[in-house]
């Protein structure tokens, strides 16, 4: 049985000044909303954050930026955030841009004990500068190294007390790889269900990757509501 937290601040207590933190989500979808608020409350500073995006100005990881808790951000797309831009230009924030697929694979590698792998993404671009380029079967590839974190924060739709997680639709995104790549992984879940309720064939993240759980009410802000008219 995993540790079940009752406050978000307690759930993120392993995140300290200078910690490396991975956070699941794509845009605002699938982010552990309340765990991020927990970091804001904790005040932990000089963080290195690894996440595909960095939230928006007033929600998600954007709140940590606003609070100047992040020293370095590793992600693939950070264009939704004006404060991000300001801090980069002011030299307050270091940013390491990584192709999205390489980012996902680097995180997977971190959880999977693969120290490095070759990928075609980025060959011949600024991203490959300073990295080893190697030919396989007549094609060039760049060597990318694994990423891990002191603490990983993910969000799931359902979980049991063994830490087994199930995600909903595209809220899965980076969460499974991030759950596996953290030395400590805390999952914010919409619903904690009884043992045996989750089908073993349907588990997305097995409990071995999860050290703590907490239930959280989600706002689930929509960035770009796009609808069609009822017929």
């Amino acid at each position, binding site marked *: 049985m995993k540790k079940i937290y009752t406050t978000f601040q307690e759930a993120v207590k392993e995140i300290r000044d200078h910690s490396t933190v991975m956070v699941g989500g794509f845009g605002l979808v699938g982010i552990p909303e309340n765990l991020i608020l927990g970091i804001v409350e904790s005040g932990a500073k000089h963080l290195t954050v690894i996440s595909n995006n960095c939230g928006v100005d007033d929600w998600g990881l954007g709140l940590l930026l606003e609070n100047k808790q992040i020293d370095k951000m590793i992600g693939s797309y950070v264009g939704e955030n004006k404060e991000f831009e300001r801090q980069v230009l002011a030299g307050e924030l270091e940013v390491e841009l990584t192709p999205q697929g390489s980012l996902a694979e680097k995180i997977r590698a971190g959880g999977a004990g693969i120290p490095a792998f070759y990928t075609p993404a980025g060959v011949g671009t600024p991203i490959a500068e300073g990295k080893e380029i190697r030919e396989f079967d007549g094609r060039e590839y760049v060597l990318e190294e694994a990423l891990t974190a002191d603490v990983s924060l993910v969000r799931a*739709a359902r979980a049991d007390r063994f830490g087994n997680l199930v995600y909903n639709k595209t809220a899965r995104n980076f969460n499974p790889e991030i759950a596996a790549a953290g030395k400590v992984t805390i999952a914010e879940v919409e619903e904690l269900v009884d043992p045996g309720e989750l089908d073993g064939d349907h588990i997305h993240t097995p409990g071995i990757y999860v050290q703590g759980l907490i239930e959280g009410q989600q706002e689930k802000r929509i960035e770009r509501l796009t*609808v069609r008219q009822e017929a």
Partner: protein
Amino acid sequence: MSTVKQDKAVQREKIARRAEREIESGFYVNLGIGMPTMVANYIQPGKEVVLQSENGLLGIGPSPYESEVDPDLINAGKETVTASVSGSYCSSAESFAMIRGEHLDLAILGGMEVAANGDLANWMIPGKVIKGMGGAMDIVHGAKKIVIIMDHVSKHGTPKILKECTLPLTGKGVVDRIITDRAVIDVTDAGLLLREVAEGFTVQEVIDSTEAPLEVSGSLKEAGY
């Protein structure tokens, strides 16, 4: 709407409709954010096409009715979508495994510059704020065919199809075909090959508005779209 804006919309639709003809029934396709996403609106009925979204959705359906909106279900442009009846979800690493492993038949992406050798630049302009490449650098290596759709010239009237890219690259030698408001051009081992000219343009006009040398195809189609 001003005439200029209207013209712009008409032009984008023209490009998107022409790009749709690249899609064959049975194809798995990734459409980039922006104009490429529009291509989905023009897919001919009867074509069975599976659209992939790199955030982990294989089988994008139409936009949801208001009552169907699920905040956990978006495309890579962060727009709310639905899933098709064949739709399945996967993690980001699995999604890019699918892309990088060249399981997609086609990707249609936007471009800032394309060079004669197939180099593509579409992710950053030095001096402007960096937003990031997202999945573009993976996708350009990840489909059997890469089609770039863009305006033939910049808003200042300068060519975007160049001898060499001036902007930082997204991928080296990755483009197979370029579709603009003026022409369809293939990247071949011998350089660029002009395959079609759009209605309202002459071959000479296309050549004049292209910095890179253009070979004209023997089977050139004029007023092709």
